[in-house]
């Protein structure tokens, strides 16, 4: 009802033109026995007023707790100009820019995005986004199998310090494709992979090595040595990176002697709200030599019939709508609007702003870890330095402690019990530039209190 403009006159005139007695008659090709009799289970319609009241009440119920969870999704400041611009109808309500002449706004924005992401990661080409960071890893593995012509094994080495959800998604999305995944351990008290431990794979046909930097624990990996190790064995290197960290960290294009081959990651930190998990965007960049193996849309600069510069989708022969069963991926709709958010975010921050966000986040996390480990029996799990996350261990199970913190409006981090039981009572915490010293103090004193009463109980 609410969004249908037809008046009774319209309906009558339209049916007359069609030559149908009723709207119902337009469905006469549908077998009568299949026709829906009633739509039980659907409530009746609400006005915008009612639905907004409902949503406001539900939002209030969720509240706005103080969040120290990271684990792949990070609370960063989002400039107000980002969403006020990208929710402009012309961006928000446009389709994929197949009609290039009527979509130069979107196309040029994608070209700018591709340029920024290539520069940030130190690579030569970028696509126009994938679904999210996790699926981007899966796509990168499939791409590596296509791109690494020297390797027959379709064998990928996945670190155990890779985000466990990325691992899970990669397995689920490649399940029927005959890939082999070997898991690389992390050094128990340092939290990162050691090149030495790779020795067991020497002599194997390895298609690709995945390296996450910083890894799931927030810890820095030895990317140069790992990259060189892989390249020396004919394997491609898939870098999984946090885009904010790249303001401070060596870009994957410069890892080792030759640089990583495929770079992917979660774009969420660049201007996308946490929003219970999405929409975010996955990014992927690579070297020019692999561009035809890359999944997803790509925009190219070209000229129009009068020789004026313009932009259009290019290399579409990789994509499902042209190549069908032989496409590089089945992806069609991607995460365009979020990619736009990332583009505006990067433009507004610039390299220096991004550097400050990264530095502030690192500093806040250091401050947080210091405050937490000042509490008796709270310790850092790993000696090696990291970015804006860290694992701390408690003397007792994490879950009830987190529940106690939640009661006080504090989300104290991610319980690693299910993911890394070998770490004991381990908690992954994160602080970004959005956290103040007062926030950190509030967390530390709530934690200390929660542990005290747990001990007392």
């Amino acid at each position: 009802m609410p969004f249908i403009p037809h008046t009774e006159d319209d309906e009558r005139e339209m049916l007359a033109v069609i030559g149908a007695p009723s709207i119902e008659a337009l469905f006469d090709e549908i077998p009568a026995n299949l026709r829906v009799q009633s739509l039980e289970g659907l409530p009746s319609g609400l006005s915008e007023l009612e639905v907004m009241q409902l949503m406001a009440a539900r939002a209030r119920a969720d509240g706005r707790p103080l969040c120290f969870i990271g684990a792949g999704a990070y609370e960063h400041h989002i400039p107000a100009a980002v969403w006020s611009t990208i929710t402009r109808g012309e961006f928000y309500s446009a389709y994929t820019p197949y009609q290039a002449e009527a979509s130069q706004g979107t196309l040029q924005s994608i070209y700018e995005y591709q340029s920024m992401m290539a520069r940030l990661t130190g690579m030569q080409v970028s696509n126009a986004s994938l679904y999210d960071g996790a699926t981007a890893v899966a796509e990168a593995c499939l791409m590596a199998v296509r791109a690494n012509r020297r390797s027959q094994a379709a064998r990928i080495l996945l670190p155990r310090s890779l985000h466990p959800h990325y691992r899970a998604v990669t397995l689920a999305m490649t399940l029927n494709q005959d890939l082999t995944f070997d898991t690389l351990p992390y050094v128990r008290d340092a939290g990162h992979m050691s090149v030495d431990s790779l020795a067991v794979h020497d002599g194997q046909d390895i298609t690709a090595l995945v390296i996450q930097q910083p890894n799931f624990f927030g810890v820095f990996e030895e990317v140069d040595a790992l990259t060189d190790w892989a390249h020396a064995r004919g394997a491609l290197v898939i870098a999984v990176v946090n885009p904010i960290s790249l303001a401070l960290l060596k870009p994957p294009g410069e890892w080792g002697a030759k640089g990583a081959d495929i770079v992917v990651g979660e774009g969420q930190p660049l201007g996308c709200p946490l929003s219970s998990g999405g929409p975010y965007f996955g990014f992927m960049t690579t070297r020019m030599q692999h561009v035809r193996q890359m999944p997803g849309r790509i925009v190219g600069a070209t000229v129009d019939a009068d020789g004026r510069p313009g932009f259009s989708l290019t290399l579409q022969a990789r994509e499902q709508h042209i190549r069908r069963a032989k496409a590089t991926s089945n992806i069609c709709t991607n995460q365009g609007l979020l990619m736009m958010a990332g583009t505006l975010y990067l433009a507004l921050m610039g390299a220096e702003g991004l550097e400050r966000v990264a530095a502030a986040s690192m500093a806040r996390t250091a401050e947080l870890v210091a405050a937490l480990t000042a509490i008796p029996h709270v310790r850092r799990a790993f000696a090696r330095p990291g970015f804006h996350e860290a694992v701390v261990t408690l003397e007792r199970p994490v879950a009830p402690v987190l529940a106690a913190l939640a009661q006080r409006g504090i989300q104290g981090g991610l319980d690693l019990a299910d993911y890394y039981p070998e770490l004991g009572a381990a908690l992954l915490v994160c602080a970004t530039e959005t956290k103040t010293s007062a926030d950190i103090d509030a967390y530390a004193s709530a934690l200390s209190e929660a542990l005290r009463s747990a001990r007392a109980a």
Partner: protein
Amino acid sequence: MSLALREKLIFDYSRPGRGARGQWPPVPAGAAPEGIPAGLERRTRPQLPEVSELDTVRHYTRLSQLNFSIDTHFYPLGSCTMKYNPRACNAAALLPEFAGRHPLAPVTHGQGFLACMYELQEMLKAVTGMRGVALSPLAGAHGEFAGVAMIRAYHRARGDLARDEIIVPQAAHGTNPATATMCGCVAREVAVGADGDVDLEALRAVVGAKTAGIMLTNPSTLGVFERRIEEVARIVHQAGGLLYYDGANLNAILGKVRPGDMGFDAIHMNLHKTFATPHGGGGPGAGAVGVSARLLPFLPVPIVERGAEQPLYRWLGERELPQSIGRLTGFGGNAGVLLRAYVYMRMLGREGMRRVGEYATLNANYLSARLQQVGFEAAYPQRRASHEFILTLKRAEQDYGVTAMDVAKRLLDLGFHAPTTYFPLLISECLLIEPTETESKQTLDAFVAAMAQILREAQEDPEQLHGAPHRLPVRRLDDVRAARELNLIYQEAGG
């Protein structure tokens, strides 16, 4: 034109040392990156634009004006369901509590959000007639992946290991065969008869012991309802295969007939089509999947469950659903898109849902009739249009050398987004036209007038059409050059 019609690149605004400094966070004492081990630091800054906040806002505002969109133009893009995206949906999804909620937040800090997700699952079940729904797939193709993966898991669970063929009709969307491949299957095409329905003989010939399933849209991409769908279901089921429903065309039948009742075992819905979440110039989408009873155990995780005690709503994961095909997304799905769809469905309600299918169908049949009146040829004139229909310009091409592309580009000149062109591949020189239910008769009439003008121009001045568009920021773009001289990222002049 001096209203923005040309806009330089953001990099052209950049000057060393400029910046939107209000966005830079205060850096707390001791924030220097001493923690970074030697050799891991970045040595040269990435050459991102150095621009002011005003530069950025002005640049992207001007760029936006170069786009056609639903909010500015009629956009009858077949198969894409470009309907009005209600602004309330956006406002609700961006409420600070929803926008700020961490995906791994405890469920006690998310009962409001989870209630929406649970009810969305329930509504989608009701409207599709499926037994279970998972919301996590991130777009239609991702939902297809989930669906075919579940079909494979089903056969595998039964020890029926040889089934690795997915049947797709000739006119299927490219994602269907591409999905089959991603699921390790072989895509086998089945022919479509002259009336647009699947050729049942051909289908019988192709099914067999290797058949994992068939992927169909209904109404099909030809814009007609597959009338013998029950027979199709019988043939495939009897051969041991399952039926997958590509929900891209669900808008056509919303409230009228349900995939579950037609015999489908798995289905994805494009919430960014049928349920009016915005397409955002390429995404995001949300490709929730629904399943029949036989596929219930295989749904991807996570799923929202409603329990009996507080907290009422909670996530089910791999542990609770051990046969699940697993996790397909970093977190729980495109929650913000799901919230928008939820709000839209609540506003429509039972009555509104039914009217979507009705008026989408009325609009398509009216537009088809009117366009035939002014001289266009429908691909299936003897059939009812569903929510969309196909024109073929075969005749115009033969008589005047005017192609579907020419017509599409000229429509842009006249202020209408073009229909889908050259899809489905089955029909030569085709335009696939989907007006959607949110457009008024007056808009459709204006479109008919533009199309009639183009037909006149095709007869009188075909050059005009070959050269179109004439009035847009750019004329026809050289795609060949774009692919040959790949220019995919900005390089500083001389750099």
